[in-house]
């Protein structure tokens, strides 16, 4: 049984189909990179997996004890967040909300969990700082800590390195790889960065005019990767 199993999935919004016949599965400990051209439906896929959009066809099955609301999501930054007055601790703690059930406030357990994840991502010194005053890389670490509060099982990262400089990008990739290897967190990452995908991922899902799903080695050997890397794939 896989954590996540998508069969014959058709994607789109407002009745407009973007992609159909999509098959892929994610097992525990996998590091799946989803790559594809702009407009190929990467964001639509994310929203569908998260349950924010209904699938137009096919099915998404969750297994191995994973519930649909146990995906730690790291969204792309929004306008609202850019001038949002919130401390790092408040943001991380808000990841624990789904654990609260019907109680209105955070308990000791949630606070301890938030503290743990703040430490795990090396944010102790920034805990009381304002989120909007942090650098891009620091902000992504805060959101990563928040996602880890929501789940230890599966992280879904939507272009986590966009807008970061190369050094910070490298650091963030290392952190994500570390979580995947050391903590056995399953990772699904949407990315533009095909080199990093090939370097870190265990599996690759390529969507667009041609669809590919398989392990990294299979991908490197395939025609899809060659045409994407050489043929104006947006890099």
């Amino acid at each position, binding site marked *: 049984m896989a954590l996540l199993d998508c069969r014959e999935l058709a994607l789109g919004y407002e009745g407009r189909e973007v992609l159909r016949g999509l098959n892929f599965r994610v097992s525990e400990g996998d590091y799946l990179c989803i790559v594809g051209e702009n407009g190929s439906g990467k964001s639509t896929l994310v*929203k569908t997996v*998260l*349950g*924010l959009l209904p699938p137009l066809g096919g099915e998404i099955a969750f297994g191995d004890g994973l*519930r*649909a*609301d*146990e*995906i*730690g*999501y790291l*969204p792309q930054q*929004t*306008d*609202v*967040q850019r*001038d*949002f*007055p*919130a*401390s790092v601790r*408040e*943001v991380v703690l*808000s*990841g624990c*909300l*789904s654990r*609260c059930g019907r109680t*209105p*406030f*955070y308990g000791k357990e949630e606070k301890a969990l938030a503290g743990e994840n703040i430490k795990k991502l090396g944010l102790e010194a920034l805990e*009381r*700082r*304002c989120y909007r*005053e942090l650098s891009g890389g620091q902000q992504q670490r805060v959101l990563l800590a*928040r*996602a880890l509060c*929501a*789940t230890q099982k599966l992280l*879904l990262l939507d272009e986590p390195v966009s807008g970061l400089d190369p050094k910070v990008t490298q650091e963030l990739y290392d952190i994500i790889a570390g979580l995947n290897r050391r903590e056995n967190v399953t990772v699904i990452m949407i990315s533009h960065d095909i080199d990093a995908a090939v370097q870190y991922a265990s599996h690759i899902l390529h969507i667009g005019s041609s669809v590919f799903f398989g392990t990294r080695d299979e991908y490197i050997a395939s025609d899809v990767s060659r045409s994407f890397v050489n043929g104006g794939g947006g890099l």
Partner: protein
Amino acid sequence: MSGLFEKLISYMQYPFVRYALIVGVLIALCSSLLGVTLVLKRFSFIGDGLSHVAFGAMAIAAMLKLTHEMPLVLAITVLCAVLILRTGQRAKIKGDAAIAMISVGSLAIGYLLMNLFSTSGNLSGDVCSTLFGSTSILTLTQTEVWLCSVLSLAVVVIFILFYNRIFSVTFDESFARATGTRADVYNLLIAIVTAVIIVLAMNLVGSLLISALIIFPALSAMRVFKSFLSVTICSAISSVICALLGILISILAGTPVGSTIVAVNIVMFALFSILSHTVIGGKRA
């Protein structure tokens, strides 16, 4: 100076002045709480739109010659809040255009109705006091005072109970949704509470000035404070202080209550801006 105090104390003996102070403070408190969320969610214009709706509803209530107009106004405004939110989500008609339509429409219909069915001889006075709330805070009946107090306390309690969820939905709606928070429900809650606040605040500052009561304290607090909790607390405190000062000044100087409160809020905003430039800007440099 002592003359002023004596004057103030003599005014305090009138129950309507005490009522005005109590209700004013409560309304200021609850209107400031949601301000931060509304500003950050880019919902400030919904507040503005709803206040015009409340004006239209008030005109309908006047036309029907109701003695207690608040329940009707409340019902219509809440309904419109829900409608505006729904259209905003569907995005077929752009959200802001829909709001502009509803708000300008109800303003026009409201004035039209007031003209057609006016019973009093002083039409422009009526319109003016509905728009700028010149004296309505001082003419509240005891039932209205109770209604206002109960509603404001309800708003405060709801805000505290749902504080963490409101934070989460405001900061990052898609994350909240993805992790199982029912963002739609909380957006609806925010819209309904906003509608309630607007109807309450109409008594204090009139329908045209309500937005000021909602956004100024939040904007002032955001100049200086860095965490959601401190911004919320600061905006509540600054709003209450501004309302108190505004009501007292208006009683002593005989100025209209609503615009005095807003003027005090503007001064407060200026003070906070200066503070953020000198103290905090200096520290950072």
